[in-house]
């Protein structure tokens, strides 16, 4: 086959367009696939299992929430509309909507601790226009309070209601501030960070440590021998709305 110069240039231009389009499609989709590749490379994926049986037996307990909020300088604001929450209790029927029937309500207990799910495929990371929220190699969904422009797109995107916005300056509402963790300013979004500052020191998250019943088990989901994996292989566990495709890393043992 004889290739004229015109044909050659045509093929060249076509290939350039194809490569360009491929790169673009990859860039648009790439926020999602990084994680699975890393799992195969023996990386960690932090996750948590919460034993709701134990929570049920300690009705009204919120020690995990208090420990979290104290440790991260989460403000207590007078107006509920402006509330900032990282880890808190919600009624079971609201956390697992449409999963409950009239006959199991009591069996399933009253409240369930909820927090950022540190999804494998986080919608918040996908929509953030500045990469102020991003996913770390070990699965922690991070927030950069200094890059966030406060557009709140991540709050619209998160299907779990895990994110809070600083509608007002939180600093006058801190109570006893923890000098080891930065307070935030008005106008940025925040959420549970899986205690990445404690993980860096080889410690467990504050909520896990605070629980008197060891209802929360934190560990590496990629390690088949980790306590969390042992627990998940022995007990029936659910995630919040897995059908949405976000891949939550928080598991609830029912």
């Amino acid at each position: 086959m004889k290739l004229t110069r015109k044909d050659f240039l045509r093929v060249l231009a076509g290939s350039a367009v194809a490569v360009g389009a491929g790169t673009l499609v990859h860039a648009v989709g790439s926020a999602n696939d990084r994680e699975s590749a890393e799992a195969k490379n023996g990386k960690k994926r932090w996750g948590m299992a919460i034993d709701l049986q134990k929570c049920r037996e300690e009705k009204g307990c919120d020690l995990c929430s208090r420990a979290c909020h104290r440790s991260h300088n989460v403000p207590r604001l007078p107006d509920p509309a402006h509330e900032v929450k990282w880890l808190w209790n919600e009624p079971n029927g609201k956390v697992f909507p449409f999963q409950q029937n009239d006959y199991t309500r009591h069996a399933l207990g009253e409240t369930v601790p909820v927090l950022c799910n540190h999804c494998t495929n986080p919608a918040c990371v996908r929509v953030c226009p500045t990469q102020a929220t991003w996913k770390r190699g070990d699965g922690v969904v991070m927030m950069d309070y200094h890059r966030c422009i406060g557009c709140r797109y991540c709050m619209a995107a998160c299907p779990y209601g895990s994110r809070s916005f600083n509608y007002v300056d939180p600093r006058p509402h801190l109570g006893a501030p923890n000098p080891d963790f930065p307070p935030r300013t008005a106008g940025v979004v925040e959420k549970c960070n899986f205690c990445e500052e404690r993980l860096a020191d080889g410690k467990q998250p504050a909520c896990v440590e605070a629980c008197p019943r060891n209802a929360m088990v934190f560990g590496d989901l990629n390690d088949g021998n980790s306590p969390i994996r042992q627990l998940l292989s022995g007990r029936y566990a659910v995630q919040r709305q897995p059908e949405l495709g976000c891949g939550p890393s928080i598991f609830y043992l029912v």
Partner: protein
Amino acid sequence: MLDKALKGSGRYWGWIAFLLALIAVGFTCYLRQLAYGLGITGLSRDVSWGIYIAQFTFFVGVAASAVMVVLPYYLHNVQQFARITILGELLAVAAVTMCMLFIFVDMGQPARVLNVLLYPTPHSMMFWDMISLTGYLLLNGVIAWVMLSAEQKGRPAPSWIKPVIILSIPWAISIHTVTAFLYNGLPGRPLWFTAILAPRFLASAFASGPALLILLCLALRRLTSFDAGQEAIRRLGVIVAYAMTVNVFFLFLELFTALYSGMPDHAEPFEYLFFGLDGKNGLVPVMWLSVVLALASLLALLVPRFRRNERVLALASLAVFLSLWLEKGMGLIVAGFVPSPLRAVTSYAPTAPEWGIVAGVWGIGALLLTIFYKITVSLREAN
């Protein structure tokens, strides 16, 4: 060219003074918001976008609607629109500017807004929205400037502007499609999770924009020597009639799908909008008013005898604009957050400073439009 905006009657300067006062109110309220935070608004943890983002969405539609005069004139040689394509293009420039301002006033950290350029993120639809809106503003700005300059010099427009105008047609479609993508690609927001959101946005845009253009043409005829011509106004009326019919049809499709299927996730936001949920019914009167206005406008627009009466057409255009302003500029965005992912039903209503800021942005839009139209009319009077 801009000097034309500096010579005007007492009435002209009175109007400009009124708009400047509105802008001053908005600016004062914005300074308070800047100092205190967005806590000054009616927004909350559950309803985290409100009237700023809703108004942004509505005015993207007004901006995109310029295509409804540009496309018939440049692709189908509809001569009646020769005199008003420039009005559509200038309306687009003012409306896109308003969109950008509505986004800006919604930012929690406005000083960091250029982070969007500093860390370009193609997997965020907001990145694409910024590109499409900026591009559309530039396209229409250049087109309007070139066309008006040519008119001032009494020469035909340079030929290179034609492809730029043609490019502005698909670009107009893109701005509203990308704006729909901001919403309808989100898991956990069932009201927005509908593939016809972009078509709905376009239908409502092509109804509300030309409706506004009809009102503007009628106002120009009454206040100035500029007459768009009866035939141009009638043709705009036909466009509004078709687009509004399609828009109401699309809304009916949404209601049928959500309510007949009976899936709570999809039905509840509509129940909240039209009947209230958990005793919270702040948007119910807003939505029913929108429905009544929509149906009344359809009656007036679909019967040719009514539509040809300019007074009826003006009222119908006003009804279309208000109906869509309520539905798209408020209801659709707010109800996307109800119920919240944790099933909370939270009411939202803009606060006084929030209305002040909204009025300020409208003031800026109206001021730009007034100046643009003043220049256009003065040039035509001079020729």
